[in-house]
């Protein structure tokens, strides 16, 4: 049962990633693209966690945590750059 649920989870998250990719290419403004990349990072975190359940190891949690931090910091840095024209003043 968990295997079927994981299969559905892989499918749904992959379709979600495709939607985000469409917004990344089509997004009219820069902030649309930033938001698309931020959502893609969150979806990839979910994909890593599902893969960790599938493989039955807990080594992937570090990867998920690192990706969460990296995605947040990159989004904040890009918003800061759009707002102020500089990241660290």
């Amino acid at each position, binding site marked *: *049962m*968990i295997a*079927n*649920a*994981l299969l*559905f*989870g892989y*499918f*749904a*998250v992959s*379709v*979600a*990633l495709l*939607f*985000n990719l*469409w*917004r990344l290419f089509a997004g009219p*403004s*820069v*902030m*649309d693209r*930033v*938001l*698309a990349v*931020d*959502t893609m990072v*969150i*979806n990839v*975190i*979910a994909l890593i*966690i*599902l893969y*960790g*359940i599938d493989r*039955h190891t*807990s080594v992937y*949690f*570090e990867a*998920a*945590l690192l990706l*969460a*931090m990296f995605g*947040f910091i990159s*989004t*904040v840095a890009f*918003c*800061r750059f*759009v*707002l102020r024209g500089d990241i660290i003043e």
Partner: protein
Amino acid sequence: MPFVLELAVSLLIVIGAVFMLVGSLGMVKLPDLMSRLHAPTKATTLGVGGALIASMLYFLGTDGALSIHEVLITFFLFLTAPVTAHLVAKAHLHAQGGAGLPPTGGGCGWSTFESTPETAASESPSSHNKG
């Protein structure tokens, strides 16, 4: 693993995946950035939370020990999602130059564009545009 726990893990995975799909669908369907901002920051974060709780229950059932990593990731994601949404909205407003904003109805304009009279009087003139 007991059947009830297996059912709970499967349900949480399916619910989390559906929430993530809905969040990304909202990003495609919604008309402008301010409404598009709602879908990923709420639905997608909730979906990832569901997947993380499913993972916690799964490793509780198979290894017998509660792992704390998932709580850390959940806490971090739920903490950073509002900050990201706020910054994206603010950068969008400043990129547009405040076009389309309704009047505040008060004595001064929107605080992200101009400072209130009290703070403008107490601050030096060169530091009014921090942020």
